[in-house]
């Protein structure tokens, strides 16, 4: 397509840099500086999409981010393969560049011929909320028949179907003053705030260049110079100041607590030359001392029949396309307005060579100086007129207008032929961010708008976003908000408007489709229906009709909807309520919000020092909290079952080596360390000798088991505490909490040493033999180094804390060495162990081994509702200590009630049947549903050492029921099992407890 509607000169486009994009498979030409919308208009193409519900032809309504209609699917980098396409892009903000592939949405088979448009004919049925009233019969038909049809019809574009191929980045920033919006108010504010050089200022604007509405303006002057020169001067000044950061293409979308403002910067989408790998967008998380909101205002459409026809645009947008992009939105323009500002459009269009007339809803007497200006320019103005309807379908072809009589009667109708309509119903300050900041809005009757009232944070609004429209005042207001003063001489603006909700008409209001919300296809009659049905709060109206809920978040529709409801109810507008604005101001990509947090940077993967060896030796890993742990080490041809059977046998017959580095470790130091331990754990610590170890059990204050682990006393005032892998951070916090808030008098310090030490467990009868050659200064004999003791010394020449402990029941050592040496020590021991049948084992074998000897795992046997006694561990609960965390709760009535679930073993009748972990237990599988469940399986394994399956379970009063037969659920039904003690394996030879 060529550019028949491109003006021969002017505009903020670079005619030396032509470009082309692909639109619905056709070539569309334009210049650097164009948007896709301006290119469409240049080519004469106004039809740009189909509407959400009725599939009506839609054009381009606006020139900015408030565009509700012209939504496109854009493939930003079609040349780089898939992964760069996304739907619902507003044509008015997609900056044109070579290589863009854009397509219209929501039609079949084509934009021009859309079968879905049949909905438009059915629209008498498809009114607001019609779906609440039908589709109820037959009952099963909703999700099977009706809903799929509705869903298919709904939605806008097609979601991407492959992984996003772009990168995104994140930036936390701080400043003294954040200015949002780089129109005249924002520029003035930034100039003032940055003047003395002491304040860090960030100036952000969603547009591609600073200037705001002045970019649309070719006639305004400031201090005698064209406004664009003033803009250029201001930008140059700001650019030169080191304390200022100017961010174009950066939308402040969320105003959160304590002046935390989030913005998205578009980095690469507009650049044809963007190198691959350049981030697409950047999320700015700005913490600002003060925020100046200079976010401008939105023009209101007028509501009349067929006001959605392509070619009908907002008046300021027509002006923007004429001046900024040098395109003619048509040849024959009718300006329909109740606002003075639209006269500027008429004048500019006239100057650009369009045939122009004005239809003003206002009476001549209510107009300002704009009226005479139009007359002087030779433009016909029909004041006191209304629009009855627009003609045309895929493009407006005319307007039926009529004078409004004194009593509101509709006079004789005239048809004005046209191919473009510029409409303006006045202005709505953009108070979104102010409202998000929790500032209180105030309704200003003069301005017919909600404006910022009381601020809730360190924030000021300036310019049009608080209803200041005259250019001179806007600049002064901005400067004031920036902490300075400016009194420029600017040309007077045409300001003021008369609020009009729905244009007067003599048509049957119940039949007429006059759109309030363009994207969601909400008409004035929908809103009337909602009110008729008792939906009077604006929130109810919104939800019932969906007005204001579209991707433009009601920027163009909210005030018209509110005003209409207020008018019907005959209430003052604020009494109907205003909608609260929620982030984001404009839609924000998930990619920008997650930033770098994807793939490897999604969540840290914590790997032990021995992990490289495990990986090299074919380990299968599993995630445990943030860690990855070796689960088992399969040999060729082995599945998990076979590998685990081999690993567990090796531990009981020879020796196994296990990476226990993930265990949480805390060093507890201080003269009051033992007293602190007494208060935190259920058992007593005072009598534990230096060099001794003890298993410790920790409760929450509510009496339920919280964590456990072996604790070693390294010195009178020093304990080495271990915790579960997943529990380490919360145990540390729990301890610090009590220490700092309840017992600040105790002289105790906590240090996390989880990652200081690599922990290598050697378990099995040959454990000592493996270790012996590498220990010179520790006597490893049973007599010198009995079970549950600890010694420090050297292993392989490396400083070591050597624990004689066991989580398998076998002879066991846990070798703690500084983490950097972990892998080397492991390898050394592993090599030596070859002589002794050493076998590396993973977490699965570890679980089996501990279950064989009846050791519980907190988090597996326990679930936050289990007491020590439930686990059969009441012996670990001191009866003597006056207090410890959780003690008091253990005597609450329900904690000592009979029949609580208790830990027992379960042995299946068929020895090789392995129960499902999580399976439920019943006494009688033949009972009717709902069945009485008496317990559940917590751990279950095939035990090679026991020659059968074993399981642990929590069973109601289980310890009294040992020997009884119960029934356990299986995927297919039930199986029989006998309740047993939760100890299944009798350790032979030198055992842990020898």
């Amino acid at each position, binding site marked *: 397509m060529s550019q028949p509607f491109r003006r021969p000169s002017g505009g903020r486009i670079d005619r030396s840099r032509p470009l082309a994009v692909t639109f619905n498979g056709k070539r569309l030409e334009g210049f650097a500086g164009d948007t896709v919308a301006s290119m469409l208009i240049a080519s004469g193409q106004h039809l740009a999409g189909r509407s959400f519900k009725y599939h009506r032809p839609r054009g381009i309504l606006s020139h900015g981010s408030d565009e509700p209609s012209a939504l496109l699917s854009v493939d930003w980098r079609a040349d780089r393969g898939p992964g760069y396409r996304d739907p619902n892009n507003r044509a008015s903000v997609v900056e044109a560049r070579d290589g863009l592939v854009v397509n219209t949405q929501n039609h079949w088979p084509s934009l021009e011929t859309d079968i879905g448009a049949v909905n438009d004919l059915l629209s008498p049925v498809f009114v607001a909320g019609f779906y609440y009233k039908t589709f109820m019969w037959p009952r099963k038909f909703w999700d099977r028949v009706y809903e799929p049809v509705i869903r298919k019809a709904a939605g806008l574009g097609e979601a991407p179907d492959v992984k996003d191929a772009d990168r995104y980045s994140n930036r936390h920033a701080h400043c003294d003053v954040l200015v949002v919006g780089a129109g005249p108010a924002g520029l003035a504010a930034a100039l003032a705030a940055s003047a003395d050089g002491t304040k860090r200022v960030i100036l952000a604007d969603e547009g591609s260049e600073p200037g705001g509405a002045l970019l649309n303006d070719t006639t305004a002057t400031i201090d005698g110079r064209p406004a664009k020169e003033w803009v250029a001067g201001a930008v140059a000044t700001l650019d030169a100041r080191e304390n200022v950061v100017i961010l174009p293409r950066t939308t402040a979308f969320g105003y959160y607590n304590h002046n935390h403002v989030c913005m998205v910067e578009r980095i690469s989408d507009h650049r044809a030359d963007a190198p691959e790998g350049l981030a697409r967008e950047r999320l700015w998380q700005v913490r600002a001392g003060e925020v100046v909101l200079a976010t401008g205002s939105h023009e209101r459409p007028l509501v009349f029949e067929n006001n959605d026809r392509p070619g009908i645009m907002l008046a300021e947008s027509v002006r923007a396309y004429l001046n900024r992009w040098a395109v003619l939105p048509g040849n024959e323009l009718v300006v329909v307005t109740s606002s003075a500002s639209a006269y500027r459009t008429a004048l500019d269009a006239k100057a650009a060579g369009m045939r122009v007339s004005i239809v003003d809803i206002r009476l001549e007497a209510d107009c300002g100086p704009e009226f005479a200006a139009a007359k002087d320019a030779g433009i016909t103005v029909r004041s006191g007129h209304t629009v009855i309807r627009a003609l045309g379908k895929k493009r407006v072809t005319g307007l039926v207008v009529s004078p409004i009589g004194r009593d509101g009667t509709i006079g004789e109708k005239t048809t004005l032929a046209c191919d473009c309509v510029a409409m303006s119903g006045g202005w709505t300050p953009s108070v979104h961010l102010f409202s998000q900041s929790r500032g209180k809005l105030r309704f200003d009757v003069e301005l017919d708008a909600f404006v910022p009232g009381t601020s809730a944070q360190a924030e000021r609004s300036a310019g049009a976003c608080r209803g200041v429209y005259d250019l001179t005042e806007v600049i002064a207001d901005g400067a004031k908000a920036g902490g300075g003063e400016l009194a420029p001489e600017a040309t007077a603006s045409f300001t003021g408007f008369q609020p009009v909700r729905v244009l007067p008409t003599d048509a049957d209001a119940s039949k007429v489709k006059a759109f309030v919300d363009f994207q969601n296809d909400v008409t004035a009659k929908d809103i009337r229906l909602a009110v008729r049905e008792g939906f009077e709060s604006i929130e109810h109206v919104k939800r019932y009709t969906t007005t204001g809920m579209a991707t433009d978040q009601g920027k163009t529709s909210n005030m018209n909807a509110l005003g209409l409801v207020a008018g019907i109810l005959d209430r003052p507008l604020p009494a109907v309520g205003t909608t609260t604005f929620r982030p984001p101001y404009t839609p924000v990509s998930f990619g920008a919000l997650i930033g770098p947090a994807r793939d490897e940077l999604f969540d840290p993967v914590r*790997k032990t*020092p021995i992990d490289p060896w495990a990986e090299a030796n074919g380990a299968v890993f599993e995630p445990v909290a943030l860690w990855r742990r070796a689960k088992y080490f399969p040999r060729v041809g082995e599945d998990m079952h076979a590998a685990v059977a081999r690993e567990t046998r090796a531990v009981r017959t020879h020796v196994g080596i296990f990476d226990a580095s993930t265990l949480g470790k805390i060093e507890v*130091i201080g003269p009051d360390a033992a007293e602190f331990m007494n208060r935190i754990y259920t058992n007593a610590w005072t009598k534990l000798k230096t060099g001794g170890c003890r298993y410790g059990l920790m409760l929450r204050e509510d009496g339920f088991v919280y964590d456990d682990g072996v604790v070693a006393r390294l010195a009178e005032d020093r304990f080495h505490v271990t915790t579960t892998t997943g529990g380490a951070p919360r145990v540390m916090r729990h301890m610090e909490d009590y220490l700092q808030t309840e017992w600040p008098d105790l002289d105790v310090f906590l240090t996390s040493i989880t990652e*200081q030490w690599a922990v290598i467990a050697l378990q099995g009868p040959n454990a000592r033999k493996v270790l012996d050659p590498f220990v010179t200064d520790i006597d490893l004999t049973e007599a010198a180094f009995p079970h549950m003791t600890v010694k420090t010394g050297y292993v392989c020449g*490396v400083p070591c804390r050597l624990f004689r402990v066991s989580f398998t029941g076998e002879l066991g050592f846990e070798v703690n060495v500084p983490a950097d040496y972990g892998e080397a020590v492991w390898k050394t021991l592993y090599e030596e162990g070859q002589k002794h049948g050493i076998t590396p084992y993973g977490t699965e074998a570890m679980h089996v081994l501990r279950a064989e000897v009846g050791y519980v795992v907190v988090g597996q046997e326990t679930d936050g509702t289990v007491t020590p006694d439930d686990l059969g561990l009441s012996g670990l609960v001191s009866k003597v200590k006056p207090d410890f965390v959780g003690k008091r709760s253990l005597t609450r009535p329900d904690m000592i009630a009979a029949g609580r679930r208790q830990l027992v073993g379960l042995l299946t009748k068929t020895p090789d049947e392995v129960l499902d972990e999580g399976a439920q237990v019943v006494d009688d599988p033949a009972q009717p549903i709902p069945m009485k469940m008496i317990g559940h399986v917590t751990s279950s394994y095939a035990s090679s050492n026991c020659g059968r399956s074993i399981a642990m379970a929590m069973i109601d009063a289980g310890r009294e029921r040992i020997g009884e037969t119960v029934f356990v659920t299986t995927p297919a039904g039930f199986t029989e099992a006998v309740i047993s003690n939760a100890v299944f394996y009798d350790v032979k030879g030198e055992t842990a407890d020898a």
Partner: protein
Amino acid sequence: MLERNLARRAPTVSPLVSEASVTVRPLDPQGRLAFRIKPAALAGRGTIDGFDLTGAINSRTSPEADSGMRTALRLGPDEWMLITAADEVDERCEAISAALTGVPHSLVDVSHRDVGFSVEGPGADVVVNAGCPIDLAAKAFPAGSATRTILGKAEIVLARLAADRFTVTTWRTFAPYVQGFLVEATRS
């Protein structure tokens, strides 16, 4: 001691390089001691074993002249991270303990727990701010500052040595993530 027979292996931080102006480089091993003492118990001792403990909370004190590199990062009212040469940890521990005989305190060797990176070059602060939400302006976080904070989803200790030079220290298992995060940030 047979120690030298064994390879000391830091976590698998990859030799990621970036063509950006900011470089992210793993630091050589250092001796690190987590030192805790209630300020009152210091009883006026300003320096212990050459470590200057007089710095304000969230500051870093390092006697420039001292080649022994005895740096103290004050991370909390009663908490310091003492940095010394990797092979001097035992000596330092003994000396400090001796100086504080009878005074409740805690001294724990965490040399192997932590891994450090330097982030250096024009715009280093911007790279750190890609994931660290604190204010790094010269006024708010001047050279000589040090604090525990967050980088993305990892906890770090951040110290500023000069306007464009930081060290980022993290627990060893978070080191690959932190390194990856910083290198990724240099690309923007």
